[in-house]
C-alpha cells in the first residue's frame, strides 16, 4: 500500500538532502501457534513514510507511543530491515551497500538513545566507552592519539577530564546522556539520530542536553533526526517537524508554521493537549479532547486512520479513502481530505454525540456533577470510544 506518494521534485533544485526516506514500510509479523510458526497478521509499525532532511538541519519526529517513530529511526540505520521503500543517505541507496561500504556508511550515522544507563556497558570506564567505537572502526591511531581524542570529546560534551576513569553509575542521568552523546559523535558522523534524548532526564537537566545538542550541531556541522513524544521539546530543537499517527506522517511543516497553524486535526488535538507551564495560557487555551485510545497498528482503520477519533470527520471520503500528503503552504504538508475547509473554518468540530451516532461508538453518559465540563473546553469534550 502506498499511502503517501512521493511528490516529484520540481522548481529550483536545492542542494540534495542528506537523508531521503521514500515510502518506507516496516511490518512486523505477528506469530502464533505452538512454535510461533504461523503468521496471523502484521503490525504496520511504519506504513509508507517519505521525508527528506537537509544537511545541517534538524528534523523532529513526534507522535504518541507506538506510532512507529523508533522503528523509523532504526530502519534508517538498518537496525531493522524495511519491508519496502528506500532510504538514501548522501545520494546512495542504503540497501545497495554491504560489507565495507555498509560499515563506512554506518560510521556516518550514529544514534543517541533514551536511556543512557541501558545503552552504556556498566563495566567499562568512560575512556574505554569512548574509544571503543574508534577502535572498532580502526580509527584514532595509537594510545596517545586516543587519549587526546577522549579529552576533546569530554570537553565537547562538558564533562571534566577526570571523568575518563569513572564508570557510568558514578554519573547523574544528565551526565550519562552526555557520555552517550560523546560516544555518538566520536566517529564524526554526519547524521545523528536521537531517540527520546531527554525524556528520561530531570526537568532541570533536559535543557542542558538540548543546548548541548544544538551547540554540537553548529560546531560539528551535524544533521539531526530527533525523535520524541514531547512536542515542546521537538518544537524547540527542530527546523522541520513531522507528526506521525499509526505508522504514517499526517503533517509536516517548518516548526513555526506547524505551531502557528496546525492543519491536521490530529496535530491540532495533540498541540491543544500539551500543557504549557503558564497558568494564563492554560486558562485561555482551547482544548480538543480526543475520543478513546489509539487503534491497534495491527488492524488500522480504513480510509483516514484518524477517522475513528477525528472531531472533524465527514460523511464522505474519511472512512474509505486514504488521504495523501498535499502541500498547502510553503513546505507545509498535510494528509487530510478536508484540510482547507478546516483551516478556513468552514467545517466545525462535531460534538461527541454526533460522532458517536455516526461511528457506532459509545459516549460517556453524563452522570450528575461529573458531567459538568470546564467552560474553557471546547470541541469534543466527552471522551468516547469505538466499541
Amino acid at each position: 500500500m502506498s499511502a503517501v506518494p512521493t511528490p516529484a521534485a520540481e522548481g529550483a533544485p536545492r542542494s540534495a538532502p542528506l537523508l531521503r526516506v521514500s515510502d518506507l514500510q516496516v511490518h512486523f509479523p505477528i506469530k502464533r501457534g505452538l512454535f510461533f510458526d504461523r503468521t496471523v497478521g502484521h503490525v504496520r509499525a511504519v506504513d509508507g513514510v517519505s521525508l527528506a532532511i537537509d544537511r545541517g538541519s534538524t528534523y523532529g519526529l513526534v507522535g504518541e507511543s507506538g506510532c512507529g517513530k523508533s522503528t523509523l529511526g532504526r530502519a534508517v540505520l538498518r537496525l531493522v530491515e524495511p519491508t519496502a521503500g528506500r532510504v538514501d543517505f548522501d545520494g546512495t541507496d542504503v540497501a545497495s551497500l554491504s560489507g565495507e561500504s555498509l560499515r563506512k556508511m554506518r560510521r556516518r550515522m550514529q544514534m543517541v538513545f533514551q536511556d543512557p544507563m541501558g545503552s552504556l556497558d556498566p563495566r567499562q570506564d568512560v575512556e574505554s566507552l569512548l574509544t571503543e567505537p574508534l577502535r572498532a572502526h580502526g580509527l584514532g591511531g595509537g594510545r596517545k592519539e586516543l587519549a587526546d581524542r577522549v579529552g576533546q570529546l569530554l570537553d565537547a560534551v562538558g564533562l571534566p577530564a577526570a571523568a575518563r576513569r569513572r564508570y557510568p553509575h558514578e554519573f547523574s542521568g544528565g551526565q550519562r546522556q552526555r557520555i552517550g552523546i560523546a560516544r555518538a559523535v566520536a566517529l564524526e558522523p554526519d547524521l545523528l539520530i536521537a531517540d527520546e534524548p531527554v525524556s528520561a532526564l530531570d526537568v532541570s537537566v533536559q535543557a542542558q542536553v538540548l543546548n548541548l545538542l544544538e551547540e554540537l550541531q553548529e560546531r560539528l556541522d551535524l544533521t539531526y533526526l530527533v525523535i520524541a513524544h514531547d512536542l515542546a521539546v521537538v518544537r524547540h530543537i527542530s527546523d522541520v517537524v513531522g507528526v506521525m499517527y499509526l505508522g504514517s506522517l499526517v503533517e509536516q511543516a517548518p516548526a513555526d508554521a506547524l505551531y502557528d497553524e496546525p492543519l491536521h486535526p490530529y496535530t491540532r488535538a495533540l498541540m491543544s493537549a500539551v500543557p504549557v507551564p503558564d497558568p494564563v495560557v492554560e486558562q485561555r487555551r482551547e482544548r480538543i479532547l480526543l475520543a478513546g485510545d489509539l487503534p491497534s497498528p495491527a488492524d488500522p482503520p480504513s480510509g483516514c486512520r484518524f477517522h475513528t477519533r477525528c472531531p472533524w470527520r465527514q460523511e464522505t471520503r474519511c472512512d474509505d479513502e486514504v488521504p495523501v500528503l498535499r502541500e498547502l503552504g510553503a513546505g507545509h504538508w498535510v494528509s487530510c481530505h478536508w484540510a482547507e475547509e478546516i483551516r478556513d473554518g468552514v467545517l466545525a468540530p462535531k460534538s461527541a454525540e454526533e460522532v458517536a451516532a455516526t461511528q457506532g461508538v459509545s459516549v460517556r453518559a453524563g452522570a450528575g456533577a461529573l458531567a459538568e465540563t470546564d467552560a474553557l473546553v471546547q470541541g469534543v469534550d466527552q471522551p468516547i470510544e469505538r466499541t
Partner: protein
Amino acid sequence: MPTSAPVLEVEDLAVTFSRKGETPTRAVDGVSFSVAPGETIGLVGESGCGKSVTSLAVMGLLPPRGVRVSGSVRLDGQELIGASDRMLRRLRGADMAMVFQDPLSSLNPTLAIGTQVTEVLLEHRDLDRKQASAEAVDLLDRVGIPDPGRRLKEYPHQLSGGMRQRALIAMALACSPRLLIADEPTTALDVTIQAQILELLRELVVGSGTALVMITHDLGVVAGLCDRVHVMYAGKIIESAERHELFARPRHPYTGGLLHSVPRLDAGRGARLTPIRGSARDTIPWSQGCAFAPRCDNAEDDCLGDTVPLEVDPAYGTDRELRCRHPLQPARVGAGTSGAGVARAATGGSGATASGPGR
C-alpha cells in the same frame, strides 16, 4: 483560597529511612501544607525530592520497618501519625484514596476490574453484592469507561494504559473520599490521554468538593490544574504560592531555574533555554546551609552555615512562603515567562527550510 476547614493538614512531616550499615537518609524533612475541600494543591519537584514518600506517609503506606516518621498528619482534624493499622485501613478507600503513576502495579492482575471495584465498595460501604455491582458499573461510567458492563469482566492487562488509570480512579472514587492523592497519574500516558485524565480530575474536584493533592514533575500540569503550588527540593518545601503568583513571579532561584529550563510549546525556535547547572546530586545537607547552594547563581556566603528557614515572603505578605536568603527580584524573572512577547526567531537559515517529503 481555602475558606472552609482544611481536609488535610500536614505539619512538620519528616521521614527517615535507615538500613543497617547505611547512613540514614532523610527523604522528607519538615514538610507542612494543607488542602481545603474542592482545592487542588501541587507538589512539584525533581526525581528523588520526596514527593512520593510524602504521599505514602500521609496514606500510612510506608513500610513498617526501617522508617521513622515524625510530625503530624491530620485528616479532618484526626491525627494519623501513630494511628492503628486498622484505623488507617478503614480510612484508606473510605476517606482518603490514592492514584499511582503505574496503574498496572496497583491493580491485581488476577482479578477482573469489576471484582476489584466491587470489593472496595463491599469493604467500605453498606451494600449487598448486587447493589455494589450496579454501583461499580456507575463508577466506571462516571470515569468515562465506555461500555462499563462489559469492561467489568475484563482483566487489567486487557485495558489500555488510559483505561487502567480510569479504573484506578474509579476505585479511588468508590467511597467519595474527602482526599485524593494523585502521584504522577499521567506520567506514563500519552499526551492526548493525559488530557482526558486531567479533565476527569478537574471535573471531580469541581463536582464533588474532593481535596486533591497532585504530585508531578510537570510544570505544565501544575499550571493548568493546581490552585496552590509547593515546590520541593531535597526533601523540603522551598517555595509555596498561588499558581499565578508562582509562575509570573518565581522568587526561589530553583523555581525560576525550572521555569527557564523547560521548552515551551508556545515559544519559538530561537527561544533560549537556561538550564540549572549540575544535577540534584550536587547538594549539601540542609543542616549545613541551603541544599541548592551548589547549583545556585545567587548563592552567597550566608547561604552556608545553617538551615535556611521557610518564611513568609516579605515582598508578598502572608500568602507566599520562601526558603531563600537572596531571592530573585520579580522584575528580572517576570519578563519572558508570561508567554506573550517571547522572541520568535525566523526558522530560515541555509539548510533549515522545509523539504517536501521525499523531495
